[in-house]
């Protein structure tokens, strides 16, 4: 019975990995309430600070003093007009992490922000390296101390009620100590851990969101990774979802995510359903 329980935990962990990995991208699964779009449309940085909810992959920041948490997404806090702090609570105790988003105002009609994410995944990887059922990694390979650092520049432009965001970033993951780390050759996970085996991963993204009718909206994105020098070398992901903004305090989202990526064994195409629920207060 214990063995079956570990098997289930392993399988659930693998099934959740896309969501967790997506959450690590700081909110591709999150949406911005239409009220926020209206506030943006009324113009200026002052408007940015009002009525904003569930700010995700855009260059916009959460309201000052506002908390948000997603089922799979991070816990966010609007620290100031120019700074937003986020941590991923599900992962925090096995992969301590933090992200800072810094707003840089507007340039030529584009909102500009930069994000800086720091993650220490070593405890999680060591937890997954176990004998028997539930072992995602082999237990006989040494997992080094790894610090993942990711920086990204994001810009967002309003197009009527819709928001178009572009992102460009880089991830590095320096290792300390003996490393016999083995890659996890799974979609969504492999591209996000490739930097642990090479020198850097480049990331580019295009993200679009907006209303459809009433409280119903959409979100779609394309995200590309390149990890030169690492087996596979590239990944492209595309996601789309319908979202329901019940209020500024709750949002639900349902969609899919596609992956076409290179791995040590070649390329593979995958599609998974996605679900996100988020609360704000």
């Amino acid at each position, binding site marked *: 019975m214990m*063995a*079956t329980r570990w*098997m*289930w935990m*392993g*399988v659930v*962990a*693998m*099934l959740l990995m896309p969501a967790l990995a997506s959450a690590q991208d700081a909110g591709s699964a999150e949406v911005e309430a239409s009220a926020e779009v209206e506030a943006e449309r009324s113009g200026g940085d002052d408007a940015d600070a009002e009525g904003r909810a569930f700010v995700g992959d855009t260059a916009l920041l959460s309201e000052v003093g506002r908390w948000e948490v997603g089922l799979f997404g991070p816990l966010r806090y609007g620290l100031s007009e120019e700074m937003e702090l986020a941590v991923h609570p599900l992962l925090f105790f096995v992969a301590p992490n933090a992200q800072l988003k810094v707003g840089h105002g507007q340039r030529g009609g584009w909102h500009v922000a930069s994000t800086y994410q720091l993650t220490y995944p070593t405890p999680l990887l060591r937890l997954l*390296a*176990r*004998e*028997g*059922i*539930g*072992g*995602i*990694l*082999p*237990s*006989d*390979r040494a997992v080094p101390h790894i610090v993942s650092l990711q920086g990204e520049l994001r810009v967002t432009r309003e197009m009527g009620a819709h928001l178009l965001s572009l992102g460009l970033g880089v991830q590095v993951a320096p290792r300390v100590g003996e490393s016999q780390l*083995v890659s*996890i*050759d*799974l979609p969504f996970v492999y591209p996000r851990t490739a930097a642990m085996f090479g020198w850097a991963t480049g990331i580019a993204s295009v993200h679009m969101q907006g209303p459809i009718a009433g409280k119903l909206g959409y979100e779609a994105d394309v995200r590309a990774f390149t990890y030169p020098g690492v087996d596979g070398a590239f990944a492209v992901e595309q996601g789309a979802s319908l979202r329901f903004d019940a209020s500024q305090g709750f949002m639900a989202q349902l969609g899919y995510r596609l992956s076409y990526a290179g791995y*040590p*064994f070649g390329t*593979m195409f995958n599609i*998974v359903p996605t679900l996100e629920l988020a609360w704000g207060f």
Partner: protein
Amino acid sequence: MRVVLTQALATALWGCDPFNATFDEVEDAQYYEAQELIATEPPRGELVVMDWNIKFGGARIDFWFDCHGDRVLMDEDEVLENMEGLATKIRQVDPDVLLMQEIDIDSKRVAYVDQVQWLLDNTELNYAVFASQWRAHHVPTDGIGRVNMGNAILSKYPIRDAQRIAMPQISTNDALTNYFYLKRHILTSIVEVPEYGDLHVLNVHTDAFAQDGTKELQIDLFKDELDRIDRAGGIFVAGGDLNTLPPGSAQQNGFPDSICESEDFQADDFRAEEDALSAYYEDYTPAIPLEDYQADNSPYFTHSTQGGTFWNRKLDYLFTNGTFVPGSGLTHQNASSGGMETMPLSDHAPITVRFALEER
């Protein structure tokens, strides 16, 4: 109630087979061809047939499932070095037809070396068919990861009509375990032998760890398939790793290299299956005659789980409803029996026999 809920959830989650781990009852096998085909003369009156469980090129590394060690993965250099050892033996035997078990084509544990293609490109063999026995995008146990292991038939001559015929899984496993577990099958094919015609070649690897009668059922199903071909007038050579002993084996349990304590890995107590192969010996011709084996078991042993323990049980077989050249069956145990040492190459010794191409 918990079991019902578990199985319902497994069915719901795996209805779409997200880890690509399931098979149809009957599927076409996967076809291979050497990068450079080697011109071969028509065989002169007989074919050399070889059978070998190659332990996915793991040689005598002590892996976790043997309970002798904890290794899970090999690096590419290790795999290629071990494959070169296997290829050296195959080139020495120079078989016309080769049945292989436990051969990997897309597994993390062998650094993703396609061993079927590699052997075709490094031996005199030209064609192959492969059927998966264990396939999943990711196996969440012991760090195995992606795996695609199975049975293959390699040949100097073209192969057609190759199919994977599914066999039942261990019934005592829960649905989730069986989803990721090995899925045994019969690999059946027809080798087009020049100036002779069609030769049915069948390959099987039955369950090692079944405690519920599944292995005996698989052995019977394989025999049923041979009987079907025989009744239809076909000539076959069939074999593989049947994971059971011949009738009349002197030792049936208590092998010194069987050290696993887990109930899930008890594979070496054969006392309840003494007659499992009796019908094979009664109806068909074995590569190693039963009377020879029963007179002295040890020259025909083909398996030991650890390199430090010499071959101590026979699990591997070749049978035909045609004619094997009398006295041509050989178990390649070492230099004096087969011409080179095989203990370092796999946990199974290869067997060979000469099949007589009689006019039909």
